[in-house]
Every structure is written in structure tokens, then in C-alpha cells.
């Protein structure tokens, strides 16, 4: 089901087969260039595993399109939590909105709509990771998110 969020801008859940083409791969590269915290590690997506996760019912892909062209995406893994089996949790894996569509309230509408889709599936907790290279914490605050933790990383190959 497609939902209009602005003139010419729609959002909907899609399968990988529907959305993964050369255009979205270019968006992924733009995304990586903008936010990757370890730029010396080349982007090399394991699409086979994404397809396996989709086949297992654990992947959700939400696409924002402007005049039919993908300009944003929100990808989640959705699983019963290993520590709280009674609770289904969603973890954001990828979130991107093309720069020319930011600062217009579209990102907020998109994320609020995504939360509604996850809630309708019975997801109890949704988590978003905010990279130090791309801070959208104020948007999350406005949507009712709260800070849960900080992720520290250590390179073991240096």
C-alpha cells in the first residue's frame, strides 16, 4: 500500500526485488560516503544475506519515492528478542533520505509512518542507531525516542 506524504512523494513497504536496482545501489554509495565511520573499509554489501533475511521474514524495507524514484529508505531487522522472547524488537539497519528532501519535515513523516507499520506488526521496541557522522537525534527526540546507550568501537586490525 502506497501512502502520500507530500506532493509527488510516496512511502511504502517494498521487497528487495522491487527496490534493489542500480539507482538504489548508487544511493547506498552516497549514504556510505556521507556516514561511514570507517572509510578505509570498502562498502561491499552482502546482498545474499539480505535476501535470506527477507525470506526468513526478518527484514523490512520501507522506501520513500519522489515521482516514483527512490530517494530514501528505512531498513529494519525484526526479530523476537533473544533475551525477552515475548517481545518483538526492530533494529534499524539502514536509514537514508536524499539531501534535497531534508529539513522539510519529510524525514519526520517518513519515520513516524515507519513506526506505525512496525507497531501494526506487533513490534514492541524499535531502535535507531545514530552515527557520530550523521546526527538526527533531535528528530528522534521529537518522535518520542529516548537515548538507550552508546556504542563504542575498537579496531583490532591496527
Amino acid at each position, binding site marked *: 500500500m502506497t501512502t502520500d506524504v507530500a506532493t509527488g512523494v510516496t512511502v511504502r513497504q517494498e521487497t528487495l526485488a522491487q527496490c534493489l536496482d542500480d539507482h538504489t545501489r548508487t544511493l547506498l554509495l552516497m549514504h556510505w560516503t556521507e556516514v561511514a565511520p570507517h572509510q578505509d573499509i570498502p562498502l561491499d554489501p552482502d546482498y545474499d544475506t539480505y535476501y535470506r533475511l527477507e525470506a526468513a521474514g526478518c527484514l523490512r524495507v520501507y522506501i520513500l519515492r519522489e515521482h516514483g524514484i527512490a530517494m530514501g529508505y528505512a531498513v529494519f531487522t525484526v526479530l523476537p528478542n533473544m*533475551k525477552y522472547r515475548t517481545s518483538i524488537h526492530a533494529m534499524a539497519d539502514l536509514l537514508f533520505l536524499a539531501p534535497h528532501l531534508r529539513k522539510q519535515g519529510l524525514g519526520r513523516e517518513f519515520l513516524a509512518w515507519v513506526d506505525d507499520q512496525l507497531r501494526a506488526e*506487533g513490534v514492541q*521496541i*524499535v531502535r535507531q542507531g545514530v552515527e557520530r557522522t550523521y546526527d538526527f537525534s533531535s528528530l528522534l527526540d521529537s518522535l518520542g525516542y529516548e537515548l*538507550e546507550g552508546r556504542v563504542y568501537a*575498537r579496531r583490532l586490525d591496527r
Partner: protein
Amino acid sequence: MAMEHLTADLTMAQETLAECLDDHAKTFLALHWAEISTTPDIPLNPDYAQYERLEADGVLRCYILRDQGVLQGYAVFMLTQSLKYQTLDAMCDLLYVAPRYRHGLIGGRFMGWCDEQLAKEGVQLVRHCVQRTYAYDATLLRLGYEPVPEQVVYLKRLGPST
């Protein structure tokens, strides 16, 4: 599997779930949950069968701290090939050291030893998520973790309490 003495009485070892997961360890998990859970209204209910499957698939690493043979801490990691970079990464799933051992750098030395074991396996990047309820940032910084968090995690409740 790897085992090393931290002191005459304290040992650090990689163990299997069959070796470490007993009633004593489950009590520690309950203590751990009571201390740091950010969602205490969601009952702890570990999916041990899934942990065993991950161990069988080679994904799980359990490092155990024992004092005279009695479990006093654990660090559990998931080793996965990054979906985006296809590098071998480790994510800390559980980390706990009993309160009486949180001094004299015991926790830091245990965590440093865990990192050495992961490095030997070819792990390129190891990550820890520090909950707001149990901050051990200073220990991570001493171990050489990036001084600025790579990421902050935001959480939103979409559903009611179970």
C-alpha cells in the same frame, strides 16, 4: 580452548554454553538484568535454544571469569560477517562482572583479554553498547576504543507492557 590466569585464583577462559550455563550462571543473568535493564517491565526470558543454535553455527563466543572455579563474570560476543562490509565483526551481547570484582582493573584486564582472543580469530572491529544504566565508557577508552562513541542508540516503545 584458551584459558589464562589473571591472578592465582582468577581465571579467564573461553567456554561452551554446556560448560558455563548452569543455575549459578542463570542467577547471574537475573542479577545482571535487575541491575541494568532499560525496560524492566519486559520480563527476562532468554531464548537459550537460539543461543545454542548460534554456538553450533560458530557465531557465539563465551568468555568466563572465574574465582577458584566459581563464575564471577562473563563476556558474550556475536561474531558476524558485516552485511555492509563483509568484514568479521564482533558485537558484545552480554558483559557482566560481579560487583566485588569491579576494582583493581580486573574488569579491564578481562575485557582486554577478550579482545585479544577476538583479534586472534581475525575480528577486525569489536563493538560494545554501553547502557545508560551501566556506564563503563572509561574502561573502554583505556582499552583503546574510539574516544567518541561510534553511534548512540535511541529506543522507542511502540507497544504496551507485556
